[in-house]
């Protein structure tokens, strides 16, 4: 189950326009420095050159949005990656795209450059909701992007959708789901909107007509049942896939596998250390290796906790024996009564060595984790 090959994440901190809910590191209006960014990124990647090359089997371009860089620069980055790392032949190579910078020719070029998976930020197929979110594209452009992906011949792709958007109704969410399902995407990521500090939504959160927890939960339940009927596996709290189409890169995060992040604000978990680059594009351009700082050197006990926190996000759950090996004790050994109640309430299942949350449990997983921590 555990994959020792690393994943590689490339952070592209550019976007056409900052969305109202986005708290990722990205800047608009910096098209002038894209080439400088490219050479800085190549230098950072080059820093991972080893005698025995590091084996990777997933590459994921995220942001921001990688698509404004253009297929040429994205291809150049992939070339650098191939030169430095040992990239497995069956690797999953994904890039995110934003419909506003999408075109059929871009998709064809990405395919030609070696990308084999596209993740497109659709979010909604209601123009009113897209504009409430501050998205720079229309619903039609989003659906076009899905068509382009198909037309370019990508077999593996994902659409990002959102619910609990200000002004969203059950009917409009249902419409978004069915609009997107008509393209039969192999993978869907569906998130409840989170109003994060530091976003423009956060600053005006009291004026937004956000749904309450109950209404949000109803939308989540609707999503679960709709996608289940459509034949998707709900394999992570917010992720759904056709058989064999789970996102291998993201699974690395949840399964505690190693990953390397390049680009400003990218995070890594490699050689047992969690480290990251500061979010500072200008400094990155001149000295890409100077931004790195260590976040944490997790102890085995920390790792066990992370394993539980992340693994219980997955339908497959955690292996109790792996947890015991990591931590030196049984999972939730101080909260056996709480564990029993969670199971009898239908929040959790324990089958053989595996403990997992149910769909019911997914949406209250924070409370379950707090309950099971016991103290």
């Amino acid at each position, binding site marked *: 189950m555990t994959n020792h090959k690393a*994943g590689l*994440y490339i952070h592209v901190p550019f976007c056409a326009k900052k969305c109202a809910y986005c708290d*990722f590191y990205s800047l608009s209006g910096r098209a002038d420095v894209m080439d400088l960014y490219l050479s800085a990124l190549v230098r950072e990647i080059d820093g991972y050159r080893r005698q025995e090359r590091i084996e990777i089997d997933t590459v994921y371009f995220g942001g921001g949005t990688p698509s404004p860089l253009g297929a040429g620069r994205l291809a150049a980055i992939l070339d650098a990656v191939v030169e430095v790392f040992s990239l497995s032949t069956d690797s999953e190579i994904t890039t995110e795209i934003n419909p506003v910078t999408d075109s059929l020719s871009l998709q064809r070029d990405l395919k030609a450059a070696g990308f084999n998976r596209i993740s497109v930020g659709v979010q909604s197929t209601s123009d009113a909701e897209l504009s409430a979110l501050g998205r720079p594209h229309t619903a039609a452009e989003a659906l076009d992007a899905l068509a382009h992906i198909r037309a370019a011949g990508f077999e593996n792709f994902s659409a990002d959708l959102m619910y609990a958007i200000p002004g969203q109704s059950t009917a409009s969410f249902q419409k978004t789901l069915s609009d997107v399902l008509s393209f039969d995407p192999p993978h869907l990521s569906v*998130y*409840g909107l*989170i109003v994060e500090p530091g976003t423009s939504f956060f600053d005006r959160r009291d004026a937004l007509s956000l749904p309450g*927890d*109950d209404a*949000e*939960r109803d939308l*989540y339940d609707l999503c679960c049942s709709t996608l289940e009927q459509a034949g998707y596996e709900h394999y992570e*709290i*917010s992720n759904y896939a056709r058989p064999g189409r789970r996102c291998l890169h*993201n699974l*690395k*995060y*949840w399964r505690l596998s190693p*990953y390397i*992040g390049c680009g400003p*604000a*990218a*995070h*890594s*978990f490699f050689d047992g250390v*969690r480290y*990251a680059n500061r979010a500072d594009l200008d400094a990155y351009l001149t000295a890409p290796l100077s931004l790195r700082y260590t*976040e*944490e050197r997790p102890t085995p006990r920390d790792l066990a*906790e*992370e394993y539980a*926190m*992340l693994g219980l*996000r997955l339908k497959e759950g955690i292996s109790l024996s792996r947890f015991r090996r990591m931590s030196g004790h049984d999972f939730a050994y101080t909260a056996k009564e709480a564990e029993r*109640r*969670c199971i009898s*309430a239908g*929040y959790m299942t324990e089958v053989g060595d595996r403990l997992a949350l149910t769909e019911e449990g*997914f*949406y*209250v*997983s*924070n*409370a*379950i*984790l*707090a*309950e099971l*921590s016991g*103290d």
Partner: protein
Amino acid sequence: MTEKQAHIRNFSIIAHIDHGKSTLADRLLEMTSAVAHRDMEEQLLDNMDLERERGITIKARAVHLNYRASDGQEYEFNLIDTPGHVDFGYEVSRSLKACEGALLVVDATQGVEAQTLANAYLAIDNDLEIIPVINKIDLPSADVEKVRAEIEDIIGVSAEGCPAVSAKAGINIEQVLEHIVTDVPPPQGDPDAPLKCLIFDSYYDSYLGVVVDIRVFDGTVRAGDRIRLMSTEKCFDVVSVGVLTPFGIRETESLSAGDVGYITASIKTVGDTRVGDTITTETDGADEPLPGFRRAQPMVYAGIYPADGARYGDLRDALEKLRLNDASLAFEPETSVALGFGFRCGFLGLLHMEIIEERLEREFNLDLITTAPSVIYKIVTRTGEVRMVDNPSSYPSPDEIEQALEPMVKADVITPTEYIGGLMDLCQERRGEFIDMKYIDADRVELHYILPLNEIIYDFFDALKSRSKGYASLDYTFSEYRPSKLVKLDFLLNGEQVDALSFIVHEEKAYPRARKIAQKLKDNIPRQLFEIPIQAAVGAKIIARETVKAMRKDVLAKCYGGDITRKKKLLEKQKEGKKKMRKLGSVEVSPEAFMAVLKLDDES
């Protein structure tokens, strides 16, 4: 009467709250002594911040002033400040006992209020000469003649030629001083008779120890004397005697009949110096104490717990410090299953309780959880035993009770006539028994009711204010214990009884209160992983129920590589938050939610 006595004037200032007592005291101090205006702290007599903020005087104090009157002679004034709230009625009465006269301050815009009347009657009962002072004449809505007529009609003292002043603007203060000289009788008493001093206040000073404020009625007391407190028969050596001036303490050689001042002795705790007690000498002392002593008895009890259980020791220290200065504060340790270790505290009334809570929170930086206040019930058991119960948790089970009695008070409400209907409704709702109604004038009435004290402590005062737009005023005194149909109301969360939520209530009130509190619990207990049934019960019978539904959302929707360290911290914070929760049975409730449930906002 000695020559010295002929030039002494002992007086108090009495008023309804906010009628300007403290401001008038300031002006008198300013005019009589060289307290420079700029040096004078506003409202000098009130020592505590809290008193100043609330505009009330908690502890009585005496101040010694010198005044050269228009007759050319020098007089010694002793101004004895009195607390203005009903909770401190007994202390007021002892302060008045130390005087020969009282300034009755009445607001020219408000007229006579419930406490004006209550205090005026107290003064009359103590045979004091009353000098009405009509204050706030600088305000546009002042109606001096109307108030003058009111004072004469309602209180029955002559207000002809009484001073009409503005203490704030310093108008006509001289007149007040002259009236004190001419109208307040000089003190009587024999300086050579056996010693008789009345204790009207005492407080703890970290340098001097216990300082006792006294009025000497007979005899003379000096440093070195061996004194005896007549209620306890305890003896002490006098260390010093003197007077409190606006500039601080001034030691004197002696205090004799007619004087007001302080003594310090080898007294360790204010608990030994009960207000109203008589001091005499150990040998050749007085045969009889001064009349009227009684111990100030707490009327209201509540459990006080630290919000953070680890601060139990701090809470105990803080209560002990407060008791140094406040002999009427009673407390003893108690344990609640829900709240852990805390104290059962007794107070003179609700205001006293609020003041103590605020001082604990402000001066000692404690976060508190306070249970619903309770009165003292008198329970006669089947075996004939009489139990005084101040804590619902020690209330006997119904089959043990032969008869239950609850304390009743005589309540006087003064209100503008337009609110009579609403206030009578209120008194009826609170199981009041109407006695009579007296018209003060065409616009105002005085309502007399007998009310159960447990209704008064259940937010009566706020309800009174809200139904009269703030115009009605209230005064009450204990009347008697009466048989009553009382029940103990319990609350269960997840089927487990939460002891801290129980209270005693009249049978008829049990259903509405049960429903209301169950509803509040539902509104204030955050949803948790599992559904929580809430039940209200009288004995084994469930009389109300609610349910806190299970939470439906508590999730980090998005969790990828970049955020893992941050997300982990978020979860850790959530676990930290859990630790601050109070366990009510198997249910976690934040201290804030607990307080919200107990908050007595019956009107809203």
